[in-house]
């Protein structure tokens, strides 16, 4: 029970931090609202575009390469999902687990090489 | 027992197929030659088989049995032996039909000379068809029967669809669909039977169904099951025969297919229906058949009358003959329903005799069509003056068809009705009206063609029948008259077999 309370308390702290993390901006912005001036002029609310009149919507389609990086990210981020528990438990698993992980990483490296060769990593 | 004779007979058409494959497709002369000689081969084999056949013996002869397919996985379940044999053989009935098949196929191969294009594939399909037909009649188990039954379906589909008149494809389709339905029902019935009894061979099935009822119940072969299977089988063959509500496809085929094909179709394929009813209906389920006899008889009479009435109204010679086939098949049903010796004999006789007669008539229609490009009754008239031989043959065929004594039709009709009068006099009496109607429509049509008024002043007929055309016609006519005069030719062959069938229902 004690341990369980410890566990709960730890996460209570995390929750408190979250609360504070939100409270601070909220408070600061509220105080700011009281202090700062408010003199709306139409020009102030136009979108900044180096001084010229903004044209077109800026919510345009992104370059595809962003997606490609996102894809790579997804793959390698999931890899770490496997790496972390493996690393934690390495002590008990022994060398064979290392070899297994070697194969696993090799496969992923192959994926990286693939992306490399296919010029996915090129940014231009 | 295991002589290879029947197998050789069965697969002899394949030899021709093989040869045909190597004949160039534009060499029509060689193709035709191969076709005729190829068709002669099974005929010769059939005659040899016939000579080896002991007519006095009732059982299956020339038997060949080889283990073929074993469903061990089903065997493992119980004591039933789920295996299928390659089992062929012939009893009197089969022998008759094999002879008929080889004979008509040979003549049809000569009649096929009027096929002008795509000759090579025509003959290949023709021989596959012949293989199927021979197989159907010599199969001694349900599986093999079914395989050959379907094997006739495919080449026939092509033969109808590729070689014929304007609406040939539609005819091919309705042929396929109707017969497909028939074979589908058949397959379900066969498999159900197989699964419950563990066997597909005729003789073993007969043995199983001869067991006492208690044993049958143990095998789940209940009364209801047996009747169900019988009805399914009868319906399946009724499509083939055809019995009235299911007959439309046959009219199309007869009207649209090439005459040589129609010869085979009405001469042999329709008879598979009759053959099947006798083999499976009577042969395996005599008891159950008895309980359905009334319905069969009524259907037979309906067929007879319906076909006859409609034949009277037709203006196309082909249609007249097609409806006459419907009508004549009614007689087969009538004979079967009688369930006595005379009736069955009549049915079988009718099967054979109608095979010959309709082959003859359709052959003649083909000849006429080749002269006039039409088969409408009013397009002829006064044919006798221009084509005396053709007219004479047509008249002879017509008379055979209406059952003129001395020709094969008479004997079969007489015996069938004789059989039925003994059992169901009222139904038979109604049926006799059909016989009168037969005379009416046959004479109407034939006389209209031969002696009718010439409608067109400048009618141009071709020359009268050539020697090549006369030959098949004479052969058929000879056979018709031979059976008419010496029915013992046929009854001798059939007698022993019919006797054994009769034992089934204890007659």
């Amino acid at each position, binding site marked *: 029970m004690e341990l*369980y309370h410890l566990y709960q308390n730890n996460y209570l702290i995390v929750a408190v931090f979250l609360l504070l993390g939100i409270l601070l901006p909220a408070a600061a912005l509220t105080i700011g609202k009281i202090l700062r001036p408010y003199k709306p002029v139409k020009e102030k609310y136009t979108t900044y575009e180096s001084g010229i009149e903004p044209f077109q919507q800026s919510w345009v389609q992104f370059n*595809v390469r962003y*997606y490609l990086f*996102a*894809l790579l990210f*997804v*793959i390698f*981020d*999931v890899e770490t*999902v496997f790496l972390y528990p493996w690393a934690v438990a390495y002590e008990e698993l022994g060398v064979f687990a290392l070899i297994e992980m070697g194969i696993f990483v090799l496969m992923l490296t192959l994926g990286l090489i693939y992306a490399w060769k296919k010029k996915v990593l090129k940014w231009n | 027992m295991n002589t290879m004779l029947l197998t050789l007979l069965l697969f002899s058409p394949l030899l021709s197929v093989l040869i045909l494959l190597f004949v160039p497709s534009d060499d029509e002369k060689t193709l035709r030659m191969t076709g005729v000689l190829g068709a002669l081969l099974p005929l010769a084999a059939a005659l040899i088989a016939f000579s080896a056949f002991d007519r006095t013996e009732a059982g299956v002869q020339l038997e060949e049995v080889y283990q073929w397919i074993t469903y061990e996985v089903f065997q493992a379940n119980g004591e039933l032996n789920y295996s299928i044999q390659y089992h062929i053989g012939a009893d009197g009935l089969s022998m008759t039909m094999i002879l008929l098949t080889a004979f008509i196929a040979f003549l049809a191969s000569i009649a096929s000379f009027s096929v002008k294009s795509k000759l090579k594939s025509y003959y290949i399909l023709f021989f596959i068809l012949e293989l199927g037909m021979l197989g159907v009649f010599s199969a001694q188990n349900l599986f093999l029967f079914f395989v050959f039954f379907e094997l006739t379906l495919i080449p026939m589909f092509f033969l109808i669809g590729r070689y014929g008149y304007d609406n040939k494809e539609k005819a091919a389709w309705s042929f396929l669909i109707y017969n497909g339905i028939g074979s589908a029902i058949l397959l379900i019935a066969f498999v159900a039977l197989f699964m419950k009894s563990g066997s597909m061979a005729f003789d073993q099935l007969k043995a199983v169904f001869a067991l006492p009822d208690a044993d049958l119940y143990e095998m789940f072969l209940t009364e209801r099951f047996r009747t169900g299977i019988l009805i399914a089988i009868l319906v399946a063959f009724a499509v083939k025969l055809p019995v009235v509500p299911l007959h439309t496809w046959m009219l199309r085929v007869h009207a649209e297919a090439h005459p040589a094909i129609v010869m085979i179709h009405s001469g042999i394929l329709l008879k598979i229906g009759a053959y099947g009813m006798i083999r499976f209906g009577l042969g395996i389920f005599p008891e159950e058949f008895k309980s359905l006899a009334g319905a069969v008889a009524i259907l037979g009479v309906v067929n007879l009358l319906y076909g006859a009435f409609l034949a009277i109204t037709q203006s196309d010679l082909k249609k007249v003959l097609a409806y006459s086939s419907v009508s004549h098949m009614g007689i087969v049903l009538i004979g079967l329903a009688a369930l006595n010796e005379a009736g069955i004999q009549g049915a079988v006789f009718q099967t054979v005799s109608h095979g010959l007669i309709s082959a003859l008539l359709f052959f003649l229609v083909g000849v006429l069509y080749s002269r006039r490009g039409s088969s409408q009754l009013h397009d002829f008239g006064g044919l006798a003056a221009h084509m005396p031989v053709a007219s004479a043959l047509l008249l002879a065929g017509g008379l055979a068809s209406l059952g003129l004594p001395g020709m094969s039709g008479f004997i079969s009709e007489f015996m069938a009705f004789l059989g039925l009068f003994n059992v169901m006099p009222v139904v038979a009496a109604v049926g006799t009206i059909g016989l009168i109607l037969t005379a009416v429509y046959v004479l109407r049509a034939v006389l209209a063609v031969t002696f009718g008024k010439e409608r067109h002043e400048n009618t141009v007929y071709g020359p009268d029948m050539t020697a090549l055309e006369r030959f098949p016609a004479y052969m058929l006519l000879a056979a018709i008259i031979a059976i008419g005069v010496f029915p013992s030719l046929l009854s001798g062959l059939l007698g022993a077999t019919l006797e054994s069938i009769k034992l089934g229902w204890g007659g």
Partner: protein
Amino acid sequence: MSNVPLSLYLMLALILFCIGLYGALTKKNAVIVLISIELMLNAVNINLVAFSKYSLHPGLSGQIFTLFTIAVAAAEAAVGLAILISLYRNRPTVRVDEMDTMKH
């Protein structure tokens, strides 16, 4: 140890699954469809993890299963996006109802 009953987890997973299924079947935007599928898979993960702790026969293998599900879901999302990009290159739309070249 816990006062949260198993049924609540299952309910949550079921709701999540249904939302995902609904989204995957009705949404027009291809990306949202992919996300909906992820939702369904995550519902499964909740189920597995909850079961592995609170079921009749608790067992770790449920959590291992979850790891695999996560990895596969990621791969599936990656493949899905890649296909979507390639599709987008040929025709700039992500609306599912505009993918209709093969209507008959």
